[in-house]
């Protein structure tokens, strides 16, 4: 029992450390309820936006940096996962994508050995759509490809693209940055490569990256950059996020956000935390 209690204590210490980091970066906490309309909360973003939408538009001072914490229900595993959900609300443009990525890197830096255990995988729904359009894929097929990828069905997405779009199809497999840029230049020479390079540089100095346009994020509100930070050899994400647009009660919200899974983070930094407390 002592071990169990100690572990709980460490997990809460980790949560406090993460929260303090966001508070120090001028993020505001937004308390959200664990159930919405009779359903368990699976995502904080909708709840955050519903709460903020209850304020008159004139009260909003954008960009707004907020976070919410608490468990979300994971129906796949039938369990609750302790999370922190972070949102940068405003125009949700490339600057905010970069800001979110830099924020994640600052968080990872808290644990010097964490970066070497992680890989950041980047996808981009906007680029995927542009690549398909450049190969004259019909809008209805583009929609089906996005749906298939969101459902985790790469077989169907590749099959839809097979006859006419070999270049886009190549972008649906994970690649190093250099290979990705080469493949993208071949498909979409007019893409904003400067922005892609800025994102890559922000991450590359800390950890390995892979680019994969089959990564579309878990939620239908994502529109452009999506990302997952994976723990090597563990098979679970440390965080997932992306740029989104969401209509809530007649108000359109743009932003970039991510969900940090505290259980996975604890698993990754447990040894470092134990060493830190031992050194103290």
């Amino acid at each position, binding site marked *: 029992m002592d071990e169990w209690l100690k572990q709980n204590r460490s997990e809460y210490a980790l949560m406090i450390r993460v929260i303090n980091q966001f508070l120090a970066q001028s993020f505001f906490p937004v308390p959200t309820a664990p159930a919405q309309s009779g359903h368990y909360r699976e995502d904080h973003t909708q709840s955050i936006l519903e709460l903020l939408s209850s304020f008159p538009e004139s009260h909003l001072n954008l960009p707004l940096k907020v976070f919410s914490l608490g468990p979300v229900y994971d*129906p*796949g*595993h039938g369990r609750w996962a302790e999370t922190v959900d972070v949102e940068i609300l405003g125009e949700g443009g490339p600057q905010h994508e970069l800001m979110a990525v830099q924020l994640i890197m600052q968080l990872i830096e808290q644990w010097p050995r964490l970066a070497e255990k992680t*890989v950041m*995988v980047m996808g981009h729904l906007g680029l995927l759509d542009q690549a398909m359009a450049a190969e004259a894929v019909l809008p209805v097929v583009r929609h089906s490809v996005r749906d298939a990828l969101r459902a*985790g*069905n*790469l*077989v*169907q997405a590749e099959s839809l693209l097979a006859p006419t779009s070999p270049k886009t199809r190549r972008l649906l*497999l*994970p690649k190093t940055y250099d290979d990705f840029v080469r493949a993208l230049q071949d498909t979409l020479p007019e893409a904003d490569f400067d922005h892609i390079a800025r994102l890559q540089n922000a991450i590359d100095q800390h950890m390995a990256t*892979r680019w*994969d346009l*089959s*990564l579309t994020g*878990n939620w239908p509100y994502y529109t452009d950059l999506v990302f*997952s930070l*994976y*723990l*090597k*050899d*563990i*098979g*679970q*994400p440390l965080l997932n996020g992306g740029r989104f647009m969401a209509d809530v009660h007649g108000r359109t919200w743009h932003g970039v956000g991510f969900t940090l899974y505290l259980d996975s983070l604890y698993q990754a930094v447990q040894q470092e935390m134990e060493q830190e407390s031992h050194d103290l």
Partner: protein
Amino acid sequence: MTFDNVTVAVAKGRILEGAETLWEQQGLPWPIDKESRKLWFSPEAARPGMLIARARDIPTFVAMGIADLGIVGLDVLEEHPNAQIIQVADLHFATCRVVLAGKERQWPAGPTRIATKYQRIAQAYFAVHHHPVEIVPLSGSLELAPVIGLAPYIVDIVDTGSTLRQHQLVEIATIMESSARLIANPSHWRTKPALEQLRNRLNP
């Protein structure tokens, strides 16, 4: 590229037999000794490790990251969907169909009973056709249901159709076609290049 950091979970039965043939065709050493009752074979440089389990457990092993890849029928993936895996290849073996069958080649007239182990697939199919049905869940020997009067129709998987014929049953409609699918843990798929290499060998 070596496979000493790759594990594949394979469903018992036809899928496992088909996987053995595929492994041999692609020059991959097959890890399973026929005399052995072992269910777990660790990876080596020349071939991935292997884990053998019941079909419906394969997506769980992959989603949890215990196995990097899995081989399981599409029928199982449709019946037991798992949002934490991705389908990365159609391996084109263990092909079969999920069908509606009964004593006569005739669509049910009015509300009816359907005996099946594919409750989700059957419910979705009849919902699309706006046809009221009562699903009788069974885990096996479905062909008995019309014979003993439990349900006039069944939704079951067929390969050649000989089992249906033996029980004087006929196919009424094909609900879906199935084959062995290679599935992957999303994290491992995107961070271990060896998985794509293995997919390309298994699905040239």
